[in-house]
């Protein structure tokens, strides 16, 4: 039950506004209609009551009139009964009297007297004489009741007109019934009476005799013939009514419903009714007024409803419909993406205006949101670009990985460093696409697991035959639920080299400072040793005259003393002292190089000439000749054809190059491989701002431990006594400190060694 109601409600509330408005108007009109109809029915019932009242008044009036007629008739009969001709039974005289009365009273049809058997003895109308009236109701009633009576509907025997007969008994001297005195009364006199009576329109008056036959029907109508029984249903109700008067609604012979008002008349209450007065009025007539009112009311209400509908439609259109349509159109435009869609303020009803304002506010908000969104997207794009730019312009190689180890981002440096293509790498498994990362995946996983950054330093990466050192930072991404790792890879080879050099430089500086402080203190005693030794040798020289003189004084010869000293090897030891002193002096003097500011003149020189001078010196070097003959070494000169000028202290650079050549020669001497021809390559390259000189040998090379310390003072791989360990460190000082250049040794075991000197072309120190 509930569901259909709800469905109905849903259907009703789901109708269009126009339909709803029609419904609302109709609903509003309904009470008015009900009131009008109720008023109509009320008016009808009041009209019915009014009609009934009027009918009963008429019927009462008629009843009074009838009683008066009856009373007068009975009184007249009693007066005539007491009149002389009748009392004396002088019938001819009575007939004369009656005739004279009839002449006076035209409404009377006849006056007559019968004997006890009902034979007319005297009559106002001569033709009535001798007629037997014993079958008449009034005669029988008088005989039976011995009192006055009224007859039924009859047509006058002489006149043929409907008459009503009143009769009273005549008594003999002994009181017994002697006859009947009667009076017949023309019923058409009633019409005059009724015409004078004020009656409701459409009312119909009918007089019925005791058996229900029509005695009078006014107004006359063929449908209501006189003398005929009344319409049985109506008659039955009047006849059977418990009381003598009443009002009811019943059918007329024509079938239409009518209002009946009746009064039954009796001569005495204990005797049956002799006459029934009936006033009828068709209900339609009684209701006519009320119905007219009702119809007019209904018509007016209908008209009002139609008008209301029209107004509702127009007003609804003006107040709601147009506004809604405008709003709907604007909403559709908004939904279609036209964010500028707005409605004007004159939408109609207040609520619609509010709705319109709200719509506009909403559209504003959406437009603002959209704009903000667009701006945010733009800002986001900008930030993304910036981030990308930052990532791309960073010197570090950056690789982003997700938690599964797939590459999400790789910057240009990383692409270049690992020799990859971005398209192949992004989205792929990092361990597979970037082989260098494969061995470091555990670190990446650890960083992700422990949520802290991890650093790996100096990871070797082989690249074009060189080993580069990489510092790696694994930074876990754990913010915003994004899991992954950013790996930063920095090539620290150069930095490490620089760091090495700085350490080197610092070492040299401290050695230089120490040497400067020591030099004087050592040089003086060294001077004493050397000078003393030299003088001792000189004092033993036979060629010096003073020696001969001194020897003679002592009783010996210089020669004898020398022979003795020779035999005891004293002279050899003195020579040894001098030699050791000279070597020590060399060391001190080399050490002094560390602290000495270059005081040699700087001048533009051709690097090729410097290199050639050094090569010439190396070839003629006495020490070299002793062990490593330079002539067995192939020397390749990789020089440009044109002069390569560089501003420097030529003697210092030549010393450096000589050192390098000596070292190379020493290295080559170690090689016993007969298949390899010992070769030294001297290369000179001109760069815009610098000159690069390389000295390379194809000797045994050196391992990293040696290479790292190669420029350290006193570091040497030669047997004790064969090298001071100062050559390369002095070279380093000359190049780096005195000329602002760089010197680098590159080597690996079995790979030979290359020393690279870079000298700035212009003096800048």
């Amino acid at each position, binding site marked *: 039950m509930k569901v259909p109601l709800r469905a109905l409600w849903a259907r009703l509330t789901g109708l269009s506004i126009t339909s709803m408005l029609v419904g609302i108007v109709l609903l509003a009109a309904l009470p008015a209609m009900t009131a009008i109809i109720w008023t109509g029915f009320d008016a009808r019932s009041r009209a019915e009551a009014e009609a009934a009242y009027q009918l009963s008044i008429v019927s009462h009036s008629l009843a009074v009139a009838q009683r008066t007629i009856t009373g007068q008739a009975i009184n007249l009969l009693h007066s005539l009964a007491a009149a002389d001709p009748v009392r004396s039974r002088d019938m001819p005289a009575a007939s004369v009297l009656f005739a004279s009365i009839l002449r006076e009273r035209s409404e009377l049809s006849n006056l007559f007297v019968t004997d006890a058997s009902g034979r007319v003895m005297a009559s106002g109308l001569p033709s009535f004489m001798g007629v037997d009236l014993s079958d008449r109701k009034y005669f029988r009633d008088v005989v039976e009741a011995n009192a006055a009576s009224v007859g039924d509907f009859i047509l006058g025997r002489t006149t043929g007109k409907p008459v009503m007969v009143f009769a009273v008994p005549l008594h003999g001297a002994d009181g017994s019934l002697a006859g009947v005195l009667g009076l017949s009364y023309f019923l058409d006199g009633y019409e005059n009476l009724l015409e004078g009576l004020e009656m409701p329109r459409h009312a119909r008056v009918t007089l019925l005799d005791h058996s229900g036959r029509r005695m009078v029907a006014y107004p006359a109508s063929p449908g209501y013939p006189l003398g005929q029984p009344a319409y049985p249903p109506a008659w039955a109700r009047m006849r059977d009514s418990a009381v003598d008067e009443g009002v009811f609604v019943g059918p007329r012979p024509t079938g239409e419903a009518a209002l009946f008002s009746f009064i039954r008349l009796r001569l005495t209450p204990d005797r049956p009714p002799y006459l029934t007065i009936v006033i009828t009025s068709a209900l339609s007539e009684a209701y006519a007024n009320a119905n007219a009112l009702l119809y007019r009311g209904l018509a007016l209400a209908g008209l009002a409803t139609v008008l209301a509908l029209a107004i509702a439609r127009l007003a609804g259109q003006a107040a709601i419909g147009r506004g809604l349509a405008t709003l709907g159109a604007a909403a559709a435009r908004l939904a279609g993406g036209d964010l500028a869609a707005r409605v004007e303020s004159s939408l109609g009803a207040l609520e619609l205006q509010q709705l319109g304002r709200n719509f506009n506010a909403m559209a504003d908000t959406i437009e603002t949101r959209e704009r903000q969104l667009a701006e945010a997207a733009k800002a986001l794009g900008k930030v993304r670009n910036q981030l990308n730019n930052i990532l791309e312009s960073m010197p570090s190689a950056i690789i982003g990985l997700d938690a599964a180890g797939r590459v999400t981002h790789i910057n240009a440096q990383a692409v270049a460093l690992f020799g990859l293509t971005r398209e192949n790498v992004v989205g792929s498994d990092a361990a597979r696409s970037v082989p260098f990362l494969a061995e470091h995946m555990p670190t990446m996983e650890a960083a992700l697991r422990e949520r802290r950054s991890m650093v790996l330093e100096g990871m070797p990466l082989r690249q074009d035959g060189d080993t580069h050192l990489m510092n790696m930072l694994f930074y876990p991404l754990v913010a915003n639920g994004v899991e992954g790792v950013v790996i930063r890879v920095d090539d620290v080879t150069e930095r490490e080299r620089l760091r090495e050099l700085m350490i080197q430089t610092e070492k040299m500086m401290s050695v230089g400072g120490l040497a400067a402080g020591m030099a004087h203190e050592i040089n*003086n005693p060294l001077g004493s040793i050397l000078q003393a030794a*030299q003088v001792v040798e000189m004092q033993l020289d036979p060629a010096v005259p003073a020696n001969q003189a001194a020897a003679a004084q002592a009783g010996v010869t210089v020669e004898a003393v020398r022979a003795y000293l020779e035999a005891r090897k004293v002279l050899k030891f003195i020579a040894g002292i001098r030699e050791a002193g*000279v070597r020590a*002096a060399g060391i001190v*003097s080399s050490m002094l190089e560390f602290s000495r500011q270059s005081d040699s003149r700087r001048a533009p020189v051709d690097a090729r000439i410097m290199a050639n001078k050094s090569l010439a010196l190396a070839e003629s070097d006495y020490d070299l000749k002793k062990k490593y003959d330079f002539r067995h070494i192939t020397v390749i000169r990789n020089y440009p054809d044109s002069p390569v000028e560089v501003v420097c202290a030529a003697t210092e650079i030549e010393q450096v190059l000589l050192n390098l050549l000596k070292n190379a020669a020493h290295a080559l001497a170690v090689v016993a491989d007969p298949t390899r021809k010992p070769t030294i390559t001297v290369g000179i390259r001109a760069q815009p701002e610098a000159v690069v000189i390389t000295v390379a040998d194809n000797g045994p090379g050196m391992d990293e431990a040696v290479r790292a310390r190669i420029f350290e003072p006193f570091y040497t791989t030669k047997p004790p006594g064969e090298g001071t360990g100062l050559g390369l460190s002095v070279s380093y000082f000359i190049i780096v400190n005195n000329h602002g250049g760089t010197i680098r040794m590159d080597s690996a075991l079995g790979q030979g060694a290359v020393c690279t000197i870079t000298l700035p072309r212009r003096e800048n120190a």
Partner: protein
Amino acid sequence: MSAAPPVVLVLDDEELLRESLALFLENFGFIVFQATSAENALALLSGLPCQAVVVDIRLPGMSGLQFIEKAHSLWPQLKFLIYTGSPGVFLSPEVLAAGVTPDNLFTKPATDLSHLARALRRLLTAP
């Protein structure tokens, strides 16, 4: 050697050095006097016909360079040869004015004193 042997003064506070050098120069044909300090040298020079002085720089009291300035101002003809254990001697304009050139600057230890002796002789024969 036909001419009179040149007279030189060796100024050094270290005895062994001073004496060995003096002995060596005597053997080389010089007449050699010795001074142990700059002050001592100045005193000796006023009474000796020295033509040149071999000067050590680091000395007690007045330094060798100060001595050269002073001596040059007193005896403008006097020649000087520096023989020092100090590396990186800075030759001031005054010292240069006294005729000291880098050729006459020797650092200790001298591996062969004959170089010094020859330089001294050249210095004295120079115009």
